[in-house]
């Protein structure tokens, strides 16, 4: 994978890169569990739509494939992937915000 290679850390030994990625995965999962445990059940639907929008970060990988245009196949797949991610980014953030506006403490009359 020539693209997206991390320029900051050249792995000293084979397996180093893998280990650091695994560390990141484990730590991020742990942070995720701790943070999300605290979300009030009141907001579980917005939580799901927000995490959904966040996981549309797959757009980052899709953009590179769609931009490189190495083969027709990869360009088509990449473009569909960018489209699908974009739907989730736009739709996900918008609907989460829309839901949160609805949560009011006192009636506005």
């Amino acid at each position, binding site marked *: 994978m020539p693209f997206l290679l991390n320029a900051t850390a050249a792995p000293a030994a084979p397996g180093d890169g893998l280990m650091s990625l695994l560390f990141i995965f484990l730590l991020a999962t742990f942070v995720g569990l701790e943070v999300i445990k605290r979300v009030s059940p009141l907001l579980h639907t917005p939580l799901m739509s927000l995490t959904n929008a966040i996981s549309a970060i797959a757009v980052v990988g899709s953009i590179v494939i769609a931009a490189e245009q190495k083969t027709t196949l990869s360009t088509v797949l*990449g473009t569909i992937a960018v489209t699908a991610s974009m739907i989730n980014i736009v739709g996900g953030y918008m609907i989460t915000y829309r839901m949160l506006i609805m949560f009011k403490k006192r009636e506005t009359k």
Partner: protein
Amino acid sequence: MHEYTIQFFYAVAAVCFILALKWLSAVPTARRGVITGILGMLLAVVGTLLKPELLERGFGAYQWILVAFVVGTVIGVPMALMPMTAVPQRTALSHAFGALAAALVGAAHFFLESPNLSKFTMGALGLEVLLGFLTFTASLMAFGKLQELLPQRPIVFKFQNIVNLSILSAAVLIAIFLIFDPGHKVLFLVMSALALTFGVLLIIPIGGADMPTVISLLNSYAGLAAAAMGFVLDNKLLIIAGSLDGSSGLILSIIMCKAMNRSFTNVLFGGFGQLQVATGQVEKRNVRSASPEEAAELLATATSVMVIPGYGMAVAQAQHKVRELFDQLTKRGITVRFAIHPVAGRMPGHMNVLLAEADIPYDKLMEMDDANPEMPQVDVALVIGANDVTNPAARHDKNSPIYGMPIIDTDKARTVMVIKRSMNPGFAGIENELYFMPQALMLFGDAKSFVGEIVKSLASPS
């Protein structure tokens, strides 16, 4: 832009995502959370678009991305404007899009690099594509069921679990084989097809009331597919964002399972709706019923009212009428609150957004564990469209299929009123003994019009 700068952008984006979820924990900070999430996404996208290898290719590199951005926005905006009753199916659909993106990037990467893929990369790629494709079709099926394009009832056939597990194992075995021999493009296609098939079969036996668990599980899978993509592309931001999504889905699924006193395996392979249709003892017992006027009278004399909403309220679109009832009662100085079971509705938190949309202040919405201790002090418990989550049999009847499931202690209220179309049993196919208790009153009719009648009766000076 320099690679270091891009990595810096990614790092800030990762922090933004974590803060976004942290601030989402409570209503007062939640909107700030969304804005922070948008900021993170913006940084990540801009950073990627300014990669030197993209910039040097000039506009040509961006033509398809631009098209995709436009098309994505055109589809994404209406999906954000759907009514709150449709949020479960919208969510299922967005899981499908997320998973599809991950799977397609994985497939593109495979066909570009095969057979020159390291064992590690191929392993992560296999996981990404498997999870991506199975989540894609599973989410589409869930969407179909929620949108009622497909039958809601679980469909069960002989050897179903064996067939499903064989298909999944075959796909996994191919993925393992590809790790050692990543040159087999045909096998990769077979694996993808198997994953797509498994996703469909996985959802066929799942009934409507299990949707909250299944949607949470699919949420988790979509996140994990994105994280696997991060391993393939050596992109730390993808791993972080993907695992945040994965852990969120996991927590929600665990909460949903606990709220139904069931295990993952039971939800996925149980065929819940099939289990106990033959409960046999359909002895005709008498229930007391009441008219809207009588119900209104009882409500008007109460000092504390607890509403227990369920999916039936969403189906009947009764939430706005419920809000009018809330107004009428509150005007008379009556305390009205809502006791919400974690699995009420078709996705986690579904009832809360529906009631919030109907302008009911969110501090009146109580979680089950907070509401239950209050129930003995409640004068009238009004059940709207909920059934199994109010059945006291879950507490004491060891033979009941829902035994052990946490319920809202509706029976402890002084008077219980249940709005229901008929005496038909609920999703689990069991009789609700609540309805036969001496303090229970059945209000037969459509939830929306019945609540409307009560409101009319309360509004007219008597």
